[in-house]
């Protein structure tokens, strides 16, 4: 049966952008990469488009991390994010607070191993254990264990940071 790409696009776009955002930390870039992942999936017409999209997105994000494009665009991003925020929510303190929280989650995620982070983000992106196993090459029985460890480390790393921040205030 042919893939209903319009429906899949609507259903998965947000998940894929979030997945990418947590890798490139640039909202606009995450959207661009998500769109590129869809474009590639459409060309390739894979059997399991959902899992395939995440694999491609992952590769794109990895390439992106090496690329100078991201650095060049970073200032544009910051500006665009400020403009995108609705006026009511963009009071300096609310804005700063949001940024700090995002930054804290980012640092906590960086404390995870690459594999744990990948599995966690794929689950959060809506992939099943079986799809995650197929994408990462892990055994199906290892996904639950990996998720248990990844979640626990994320929470611990975040809370350690909070404690340090409170102590340094």
């Amino acid at each position: 049966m042919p893939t209903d790409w319009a429906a899949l696009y609507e259903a998965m776009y947000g998940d894929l952008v979030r997945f990418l955002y947590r890798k490139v930390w640039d909202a606009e870039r995450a959207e661009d990469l998500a769109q590129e992942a869809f474009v590639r999936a459409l060309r390739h017409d894979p059997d399991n488009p959902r899992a395939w999209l995440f694999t491609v997105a992952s590769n794109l994000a990895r390439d992106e991390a090496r690329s100078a494009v991201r650095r060049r665009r970073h200032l544009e991003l910051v500006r665009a994010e400020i403009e995108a925020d609705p006026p009511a929510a963009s009071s300096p303190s609310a804005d700063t607070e949001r940024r700090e929280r995002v930054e804290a989650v980012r640092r906590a995620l960086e404390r995870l191993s690459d594999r744990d982070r990948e599995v966690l983000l794929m689950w959060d992106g809506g992939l099943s254990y079986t799809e995650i196993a197929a994408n990462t090459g892990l055994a199906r029985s290892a996904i639950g264990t990996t998720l248990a460890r990844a979640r626990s480390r994320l929470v611990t790393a975040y809370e350690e940071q909070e404690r340090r921040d409170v102590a340094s205030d």
Partner: protein
Amino acid sequence: MSHLTDGQLHAFLDGSVEDLADAEPSDVRSHVKGCADCRARLEAARLVRDRAHSLLRVAAPPSLAPPPIQELGRARTDRPPGRWSFGPRPESLAWAATIAVALTGGWLARGMIDTETAGRFAELDRVAGTEQLAEPPAIAKPAEEQPTQPLAAGEGAAAKMARLSATAAVPADGPPGWAPVDRARAETLLGGRLRTVEGLPILSIFARDVEGTPVVWTAQQLASGHTLNLRQSPAEVSDAAQARDAVRANRKIDDAAEAEGLAGFESVERIHLSGFLIEARAPLSPDSLRSLLSRLEG
């Protein structure tokens, strides 16, 4: 069975025990039921799990409204209002074409639009920007094109715009692969009337041949100064309802653009009319574009 592992507890919470390869789902479920220790561990695991995912939700980008699927592959900087397809990167065009194939493929699955016609526009985009016509048809001066019907009394602004259109920017040679033509030549190529929106100045008419199928691209100037792009190609559609459904399927996607305030976005409509498929793009709300298309004449 022995106590559940952390992995099995998380799989249980995730509703994924069916995916466990190291335990029978029924064994896991019955153990949770019968073991107070594991139930306590399960609640602890649930707190960790929920906390982790609420942290991830903090790390989400501000806006997630998807752009219209037709816009995929076009970098933001390539999306100025009113300038569809005039000189975007060839790679972008190829991307957009892939989306067009897939999108219409989706309609196809629902029996809404015929493959052949969908493929024509896709093929058109695939080669656009990379090929030149071997023998360009006779070149007209597009800026001299005028609406073929007299303007109605209420259309003074459009008439004024028509006079001003002599100074409107028109690409001298057209995009690569497209040849400028006049209306008569376009109609000869199409084998029928060229459809344009009554009362809007014609900025340019281009044509190209895609594997024996003519496609004519007409740019008309809107009162706002933006451009309405029409592409017309012969198409056989037996059921008029199919065309309406295709337009309706498009609407949902366009609404996402509308929700984003339309800045930098264009609406796209495809309609079947008297044996032709017409694709229209303009930086307008979907409703405005549809109402414009009700004025298609020719």
